């Protein structure tokens, strides 16, 4: 293998790469995922692909990757019509993906990851030549301005660095089109800026970039053109001069976004009245992540407390300890005045506390189970008699939640995996709403969720608080924390650094406390 010298060759615009998807339709049983969608992208072009969850972006990506075959439509790459695009063909044509979930092996080195399956070998035994691989990887890392070395272990890289490695890997395969799916969702502001600069560099080098994101300001900054999908169809396209926040949202949801009136409505009403009782009290809680810090926090009935903080401040750990997934090192947890001593989820649920976890696919749902089984999973007792599940009652209860939350599924017996991301999140919510909880902890409830569904979830949270539910909302989205919360608790290294009341709400105040 003498792939070594050619790896770092910059791709030039002269490659004349051009991809045209024409009239792509993909039909699943009961669902039309894509309906006559067309999309074109050429060398040196950055195209933003946006749309609500379930708009068909993921399906379109799978078509591009050759993972699924479209039911009808044509794919044309550099003037050549490709019938039945396979994963290998897509790869050979220089289409590379940087997925939202990173596909790296953290037990291997940077160079080993970059050249996985294309290892450089030497000697008569053909053993892996680590040094040559490091030499081959170095120029590519330099090209995107990475500061880590080819010999570093991926486990030691930050999320942002891992993302850069994914991009480097794509480039090492001579990618002519890099598709980035929500690449900034776990990046800090400065890391995001760095990524946007890398995208600009790629563009200058003639690489085409398809940028999928819910963060419209980033799309606006980097895209030459924006393609909007809605309900599996082309909802419109915006050229560079026409790209604006409002224009994108209008096309995505097909109407003007309602002003965030819901946030203000609730908080005004309670003023003057005596403070409602505390629904959740956390006293001197020490988690195993921060055994040296005490966290104290109170959430009253009918209010939304935003829990802000930097990534790694211990917010999810706090939530897990309160819910009893992890045992706390020390501390008292009271729900409605009742002390939770057992530190088990079961006890927390019985006391009326629930947690909607951050990772809905891994923690929130059993994707292969029917929608009905997921909705009833946390409280099978309510739909069973003498220890036996009553399937009729189960279906009825699931149907109620489906109607209440407007979950788009014809039959609750369908597997949850068949639903779009937004609808899956609603199923995860429905599981708890059926229990009529007293305290709900939302961990990043709108991460990776489109604008329309976000508004729906905020409205739902507000309706819940009006009925006296106490909500603790963990969120890294500053705008969300400030607009949705009645009070903001800011966490820093395992302790509550401060609690802000509405007059003090500002990005500056939150950050000051968060940095500590």
């Amino acid at each position, binding site marked *: 293998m003498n792939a070594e010298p050619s790896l770092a060759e910059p791709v030039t615009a002269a490659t004349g790469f051009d991809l045209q998807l024409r009239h792509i339709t993909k039909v699943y049983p009961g669902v039309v995922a894509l309906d006559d969608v067309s999309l074109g992208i050429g060398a040196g072009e950055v195209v933003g692909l946006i749309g609500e969850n379930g708009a068909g972006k993921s399906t379109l990506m799978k078509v591009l990757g050759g993972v699924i075959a479209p039911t009808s439509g044509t794919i044309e790459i550099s003037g050549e019509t490709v019938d039945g695009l396979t994963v290998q063909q897509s790869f050979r044509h220089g289409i590379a993906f940087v997925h939202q979930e990173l596909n790296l092996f953290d037990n291997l080195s940077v160079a080993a990851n970059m050249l996985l399956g294309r290892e450089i070998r030497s000697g008569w035994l053909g053993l892996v030549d680590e040094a040559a691989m490091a030499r081959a990887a170095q120029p590519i890392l330099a090209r995107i301005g990475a500061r880590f070395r080819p010999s570093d272990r991926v486990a030691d890289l930050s999320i942002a660095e891992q993302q850069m490695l994914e991009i480097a890997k794509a480039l090492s395969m001579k990618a002519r089109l890099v598709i980035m799916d929500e690449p900034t969702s776990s990046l800090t502001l400065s890391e995001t800026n760095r990524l946007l600069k890398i995208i600009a560099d790629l563009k200058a080098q003639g690489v085409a970039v398809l940028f999928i994101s819910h963060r419209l300001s980033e799309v606006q900054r980097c895209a030459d053109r924006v393609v909007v999908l809605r309900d599996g169809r082309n909802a419109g396209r915006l050229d560079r001069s026409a790209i604006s926040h409002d224009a994108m949202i209008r096309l995505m949801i097909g109407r003007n976004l309602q002003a965030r009136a819901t946030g203000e409505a609730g908080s005004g009403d309670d003023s003057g009245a005596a403070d409602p009782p505390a629904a959740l009290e956390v006293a001197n809680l020490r988690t195993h992540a921060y055994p040296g810090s005490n966290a104290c926090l109170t959430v009253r009935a009918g209010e939304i407390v935003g829990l802000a903080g930097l990534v790694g401040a211990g917010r999810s750990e706090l939530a897990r300890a309160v819910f009893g997934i992890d045992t706390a090192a020390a501390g008292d947890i009271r729900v409605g005045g009742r002390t939770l001593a057992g530190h088990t989820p079961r006890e927390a649920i019985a006391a009326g506390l629930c947690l909607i976890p951050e990772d809905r696919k891994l923690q929130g749902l059993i994707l292969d*189970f029917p929608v009905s*089984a997921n909705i009833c999973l946390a409280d099978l007792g309510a739909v069973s008699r003498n220890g036996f599940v009553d399937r009729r009652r189960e279906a009825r209860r699931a149907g109620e939640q489906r109607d209440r939350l407007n979950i788009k599924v014809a039959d609750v017996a369908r597997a949850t995996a068949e639903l779009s991301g937004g609808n899956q999140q609603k199923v995860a919510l429905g599981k708890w709403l059926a229990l009529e909880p007293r305290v709900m902890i939302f961990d990043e409830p709108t991460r990776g969720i489109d604008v329309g569904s976000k508004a729906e979830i905020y409205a739902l949270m507000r309706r819940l608080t009006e009925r006296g539910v106490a909500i603790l909302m963990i969120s890294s989205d500053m705008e969300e924390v400030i607009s949705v919360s009645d009070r903001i608790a800011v966490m820093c290294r395992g302790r509550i650094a401060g609690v802000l009341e509405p007059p003090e709400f500002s990005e500056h105040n939150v950050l000051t406390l968060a940095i500590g």
Partner: protein
Amino acid sequence: MQKKDLGLLVLILVVGAVGAAINPRFLSPINIANTANLIGLFGLFSIAEAFVIVTAGIELSVGSVIALLGVIFVDMVVNLGVPWPAALAITLLLGAAIGTLHGFLVTRMRMQPFVVTLCGLLVYRGIARFYTSDATAGFTFGASFPSLEWVFSGRSAGVPHSIIAFAVVAVIAWVVLHRSVFGRHLFAVGKNEEAARFSGIRTARVITLAYVICAVLTALSAVFFAMYTRSISPASHGNFYELYGIAAAVLGGFSLRGGEGSVVGVVLGVVLLQMLQNLVNLLGIPSSLNFAVTGAVILIGVLADQQFTRYRERQRQLHALKHATAEGED
């Protein structure tokens, strides 16, 4: 009954019909009764295995447990003079203890089921051989325990009691696995343990219980086997039975990744495997080929099932497409 099970049933009928056509003795009352007896014996621990497999675990010590509890049971009844109902109860309790230990090691000590039960396979076999000083344990010639023999190796109206026990256990297992809350929890834990935990399911308890159920059923099966062979040579008694149980479960649609399978499937799996063994004998196929035939049938069965599933998926897609186009034209 799931479509998967129906396919297996059809396969059983076809194999049976072909076998019967070639050698009519296959359908003789004596042969049917003998085969039924074996189905009952092997079925008990196959269902036991299924309970662990559905949690994404594996139980490799089944054969060794059958040997160990078998010699202990026989020793209690023959040499120690323990009344057999008491000996049975003690055997089942020992089974429960073994299951609890396995469950504890898997859930609390977070060891891999494969490792725990592989060590169990070696340890219990060794203890069984040591217990009898590597000698055969059994009923001395002429020893008679009429009630014990009637219960475990007798027949009622020509039906062997082992298959009656198997039928009863299968019905209970079906209800537990497919209709009870506990069964739903088993499937949930097998499919996604993390999400099950976040739903408030006591996953450690559910998994431990699965191992306990498995070991108690294995203990029951050990007594049936002891009474069937009447003499137990601890070095070979029950060898490979765990693999037989796993094979029946896999043939019956259980996924080793957990969270999938049905009791009907495992019952049919056991029936098919026993029928094949029987036919190997009846059709004059060299008995040395026994394992090869069994292995090939499992492989082909699982392969055919997967191909069929994919075919059905394609048909469903086509149907949906037609449906969608029809709607579009409206």
